[in-house]
């Protein structure tokens, strides 16, 4: 197992009532498999919210897609489409 950091922003942070936490995942986990583990470990709401089509993911401040493989210490962020400016 390895430890990564999960962070959540905006509507995801509010809906899931969490701004993030450290999380233990299997070595070789992908973004997709972490979403699966979060749904399994934290309940239906997490599976549903993180599974929505428009949820964006970043690893260490760079946008990534679901197949992205994670390394120990990575910061994995989930957030909705951006609306700044």
């Amino acid at each position: 197992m390895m430890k990564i950091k999960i962070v959540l922003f905006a509507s995801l942070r509010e809906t899931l009532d969490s701004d993030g936490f450290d999380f233990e995942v299997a070595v070789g986990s992908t973004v997709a498999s972490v979403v699966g583990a979060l749904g399994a470990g934290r309940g239906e709401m997490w599976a549903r919210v993180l599974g929505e089509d428009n949820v964006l993911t970043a690893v260490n401040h760079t946008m990534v897609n679901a197949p992205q493989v994670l390394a120990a210490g990575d910061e994995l962020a989930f957030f909705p489409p951006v609306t700044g400016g």
Partner: protein
Amino acid sequence: MRIVVQAEDFDSGAEIKRLADQSNGVGAVNSFVGFVRDNNEDTHVGSLFLEHYPGMTEKQIQTILTEAEERWVVLSATVIHRVGELTPGEQIVFVGVASPHRGDAFDACEYIIDYLKTRATFWKKESTPDGFRWLETRQTDVDSADKWKQPEKS
């Protein structure tokens, strides 16, 4: 290149002069300032709450500025974006570009704000008479950014 994310208001005039002072040969500064409107989609807006992803936001803005510098003659560029709670009439964002000539300044500034709207990790929540609502991406913003896509060289 000056990138600031802060709760405080900013002085656009001082930023414009700073852009001109950064470099010799500045003939033109184009700048964009976004303001909180008092209504959105026909609903009265009481206040706006802006959140960002510290670290990632600044990095994305830097990438957008670098792209603009590769595409136009940019002598200096500044982005200031406020976060936290803002009320109608308040300044939200400043984008400024200094160039020798104005065409480059206009295009680079519009490029930066168009991509900032679609790629920088900021999120807006509005306070309306019906409560808070998180804003969704506007299709017009996606279209504005898409206009800068260059055709592939064949």
